[in-house]
């Protein structure tokens, strides 16, 4: 059985101390905020979107080491990606980067809060820029089935 402390390896501690892509984008195209009611972790993500690509992304907020490290990794993954690619980012893409695949259930929400915020931001953006109203229901379904 692995020890709890094992999840606090170098990368997690470093990322939590020195988060990447931390801050705000004043002229963002979309922003979203969410919090984890259980522990009070709170994350905002701002994105700049050019030609259906995430040209810039930043996050800010308060959270535990797991939450901050995962937010950093996630913004690194998303930066430069097309919106379709962002749409396909899954929870394992984030967890595996940090070796957190076996994180216990109560901490999974810490790890995935930023992914939830990113997806919500994405759907907010897509919803506003829909060309075909038929897509709206599909979008809503997809958003509802995120977790």
């Amino acid at each position, binding site marked *: 059985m692995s020890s709890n402390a094992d999840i606090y390896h170098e990368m997690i*501690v470093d990322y939590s101390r020195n988060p990447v892509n931390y801050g705000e984008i004043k002229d963002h195209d979309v922003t979203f905020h969410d919090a984890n009611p259980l522990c009070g972790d709170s994350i905002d993500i701002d994105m700049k979107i050019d030609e259906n690509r995430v040209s810039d992304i930043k996050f800010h907020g308060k959270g535990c080491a797991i939450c901050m490290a995962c937010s950093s990794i996630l913004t690194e993954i998303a930066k430069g990606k097309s919106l379709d690619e962002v749409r396909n980012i899954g929870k394992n893409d984030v967890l595996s980067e940090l070796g957190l695949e076996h994180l216990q259930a109560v901490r999974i929400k810490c790890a995935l809060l930023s992914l939830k915020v990113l997806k919500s931001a994405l759907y907010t953006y897509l919803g506003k820029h829909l060309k075909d109203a038929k897509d709206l229901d599909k979008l809503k379904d997809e958003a509802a089935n995120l977790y």
Partner: protein
Amino acid sequence: MLKLSSITNTDDWSWKSLQSIEASFEDLRRDFPILQRTVRKNKPLVYLDNASTTQKPNQVIDSIVDYYRNRNANIHRAVYALAEEATEAYESTRDKIAHFVNVQNRQEVIFVRGTTEAINLVAYAWGRSHVKEGDIVVTTEYEHHSNIVPWQLLAREKRAKIEYIRMDDNGELILDDLDRFLATGRVKLVTFSLMSNVMGTITDARTIVSKCKAADVPTMIDGAQAVPHMKVDLEKLECDFFAFSGHKMLGPTGIGALWVRKSILETMNPFHGGGDMIREVHKYEATWNDLPYKFEAGTPNIADVIGFGAAIDYLAKIGMDNVRKHEIELTRYAIEELSKVKGLCIYGTRDISKRGGVISFNFADVHPHDVAQIIDDEGIAVRSGHHCAQVLMERLDVAATSRVSFYIYNTKEDVDVLIDSLNKVARVFKL
């Protein structure tokens, strides 16, 4: 030598006669089966989350099992022997509660699911008929959500206002705020916890109640954190509503008590409609049962009421003054030792006489969830988060804290294990 396996049955035995009270506290650990188990990698359980819920002694567990095995019947209705025994066991807890918190009239004690339900009952059954548009309900910055949200719901419905008595940097209430609110003449209720669930601050209830009485304003006290840890005397407190929970004082979950002064209780509407709370029911009208049954609709949580009674017996045997002494000793030691940990910040007053055995802290820049997870490896159970007190977290300007909280079975060795494990946190986070 004391036989601890039967503490509630040993009538000739007195705690005060023991040479060392601390030695007997060490011994009573044997009454708690859960304290014998190990967690994680074979580490003995160090349970320091007692402000959240406490562990249960054999005496409480056995009383619940005994009810289901030997006495299970519904109460207050049938005439057969079993029902009579069940009713007697259930009602005896009401007497034990009345005696425990010094209430003369047992009709003023109402069984509820816990403190949360008690406060909701008051907000609903008293608040809706007494609080009107523009009125004010006063609470404090260090309340649990359960003493904020029911009043927000009431205020929204009635277009009333909620005002907060602020807290100073020492974690104590600024009572001048109360004078200011009372001077408006619009305050309908002042409600506060007797002990903060985050910092352990003991509220100066006597001063608050006397100010309110002078202004003819009723007071409600949330006793969830205080009743388990110190002698509480409702006759001396002179408040009008008082609530506490069984599970924070060795009893089962899902049972608590609300006390309401009779003159007020008589003006209150029922909370829930149903069986047991009525006198007569016709097609289009009903009349209410006597107090306290008017407020106890439906088949109650009989087994856990009986378990609650066993918990009160257990505590009464030890004596609440001894419980308080034990916790003062532990808290003093813990604060001393925690203060030696570099980078650790403790919230609330350092004056032991003004606080219970609840200590909230933050450790350098490490998030409390990370602290809790690392020390969990050592078998230590502490709470991390906002402790259902987000208004207080905002006031302290933190997202969360780590919280240790003691009870009768905790020892100085538990504190030592905690301190060692915090050193491990420091190593992992390179503090």
